[in-house]
């Protein structure tokens, strides 16, 4: 990939990260149930993390042998977080 192409890609990704961060905050204001807000915010955070790992850390260009380390862990982490949050939800939704 040419230098300028790559620079553009990095800037696009940065733009997505900024936009998604703002979306996370705006989600708080949306008239949604807590369950949906929690799921949405964690999903957006996960998408942001995947963008950083695959583009800035170049994981998408690495051989599969390398991808297996962080991807396995990231998937485990996301699944674990979602499960844990679902367990925690009854207490988090006290109003």
């Amino acid at each position, binding site marked *: 990939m040419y230098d300028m192409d790559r620079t553009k890609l990095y800037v696009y990704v940065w733009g997505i990260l900024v936009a998604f961060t703002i979306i996370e905050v705006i989600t708080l204001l949306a008239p949604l149930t807590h369950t949906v807000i929690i799921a949405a915010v964690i999903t957006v955070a996960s998408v942001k993390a995947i963008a950083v790992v695959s583009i*800035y850390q170049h994981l998408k260009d690495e051989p599969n042998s390398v991808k297996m380390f962080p991807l396995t862990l990231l998937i485990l982490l996301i699944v674990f977080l979602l499960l844990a949050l679902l367990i925690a939800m009854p207490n988090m939704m006290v109003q």
Partner: protein
Amino acid sequence: MSETFSLRRWLTTTNHKDVGILYLVTSFYFMFFAGFLAMNFRVQLFSPNQSLFTASAYNQVVTTHGLMMILWVLSPMGFAFANYIVPIQIGAKDMAFPRLNALSYWFYLFSGLLLVSSFFLPGGGADVGWTAYAPLSTTKYTPQVGMTVAAMALIMLVASITVSTVNFITTIARERARGMTWSKMPLFTWGILYTVIMMLFAFPPLGAGLLILLSDRILGTMFFTSNAGGALLWENFFWFFGHPEVYILLAPALGILFEIIPAFSRRPIYGRKFILGAFALASIISFLVWGHHMFATTETALVKKIFSATSVAISLPFEIVTIYLIATLLRGSIRLSTPMLFGLGAIYMFIIGGITGVFNASIALDYQFRGSYWVVGHFHFVMGGTVIFALLGALYYWFPKMTGRMYNEKLGKIHFFISAIGFTMIYFPMFFLFDMPRRIFTYPATAGWDFMNHIATIGGFIFGSIQLLLLANILLSLRRGPPAGFNPWGGWTLEWLIPSPPPAQDFEVSPKIEREEIVFPKGGSTEWEDVEESYTPWPLTITIGTTLGLLGVAMFLPLAILGLAVVLASLVGWFRDDFRGKFAAKAEGMGMWPFEKISHEKLGMWVFITAEMMLFSMVVSGYIYVRSNSAVWPSPLLVTNILAHLQGGIINVPGVGEIAIHNIVLGTVNTLVLVTSSLTMALALNAIKNGNVRGLKIWLLATLALGVTFMVIKGYEWAGLYSEGFTITSGLPAASYYLTVGLHGAHVIAGLIAIAFLITKAYKNGFTKESYTGIENTGLYWHMVDVIWLFLFPLFYLL
């Protein structure tokens, strides 16, 4: 600098064989120390109503014995052989990261010394058992500083093991000789590979638990004393590490047996592929059995059943391994030399320990046996007997290779037979003491336990004292043993094809493995250039600084500042060595499938990142655990009109009361700052890849500035929170926030130090279009810090 008795050599070496010998000598020292403690408490238990120790002194002795034997003896002794043998077995000239290898060793030694020193501090050392169950291990019940120092020793050991894990995975993945495919790799090396993969996932949970424990002990948080966290939080952390630890100890021992049994049966190992499959299966299941240590807690019936099933299931792969070891013997031409005797002894111990372990998987039987001497007998047969006998076998097996001299066979055999008798006398009677609680310092005469305890104590003294014969044999053989030659046992692996002891660089010419033969190319140029022996003081001085720092935090803060200064000065020295390319020549191996397309530095960094992510995921799990167990948790979700409270503060929520939420604006700004720093870091790498050194400098400076900005905003935010009374001791919401975000902040600071070094190097024209490894790897680390924050921001600021 190859003089055997040169102090400078041993203090500054990075050679894998030297480091292996250092590990071996140190682990033996710790073994004798911990063994001496064991003989002491066996005297106490010899007969009823003994008063050699008070209850607390007894607990300290038992705790130090347990911790030291498991973490500072059994595992490191296996890694002594791994350090020495694995690089040779795979045809490498050294470990992938020689300096990190030395750093691992020094961290190991000093952490052990910290543990020993804690024993002699005012108030005594840790007296909470090796499991350090909370809340017993908190200051409320164990106020002495010795407990804090012991926890710090454990943290230091976790750091040592993490570094070691990165090194071994990278070495085995990247540094194998041509033709050394996975299918041809020796089984001892396979055993070490499985071990380090398990370590990669098992030790971060222990590290996370210890960080939280130290936070409770030093900073005054209440994770383990509150109802929301408490005993179960610690138990989950501990046993998620603790049960895989059993297999972490076993895997090197079994790897040793896979070398010894075939060598002395004169036939290849039977069922190699099944053994490797069984190993893999055991490694995975080892992370699914931790709950059987908590059958007596509030686990639901379904959870108990699941853990009971997985605990029974894990015996299956080990049955396969044992059967194939025995099958290898069946049609072999067996030589009963000392290594083989110890190998057979280890199998005998493993069968007894394994069978008695299956009983513990039963929920009903566990209620009876748990906390009794039955369990002590069981785990000593597995972790003590199997592992120690295999390690002693390894010592006799590789002693000729390491020293160039043979040991005295007759003394070796006497050592084996008396050790086997002594060991069985200690632990077999304990199966009959299934009604004697293990955590008592004395017992009444009416209990009827004295006879079995008599036998156990006599056995202890037999086993302990016969180890002096091993020492005598080693010392005598080092001086007077007959020359060993290259291959006294007729072994098939690479270490037996080079001189004994091996030269500094192991191989004059890189070996090649072609079909079933090992070939040393002759004539022409060597594939690896000769490398000057490398010595460096920085791993040792970094360790000294870290030890001072930890002691200072526990006891006397100015000492911590001195320690930090020593670490920083040492890092400057380390980086200067880097800049001069002192260790660069040792860098690159051949790279075998599937790791041929990645540099060993990058692979090492990815492994390290995996360990770091595991650590953070465990700390975050702790946060979610205490949050889910709290009746109410301050959250913006509870605030009806959040738009009016984006800057956080104390808010009165109807039906809930006053809650403190974080400043969402500041959190958002900081998130944007950090993701922008990720962009600039990526642009820095892009610039140097295109030969743009000026661009590199600009983007690195921008990254540094953004990182500093992040920390300044964080500091401002924390100052505000403190002034509002949201202090680290003001409750679990504050404690979990400061601990998690603070840990992240520490990682940001470490990244900033690395970036400052990169900037210095860039201004000295240290990077070119072809040479930018430091930028790439620091970038990987910096982006990891960003990724962690991407999760911390919503968890702490938004939800």
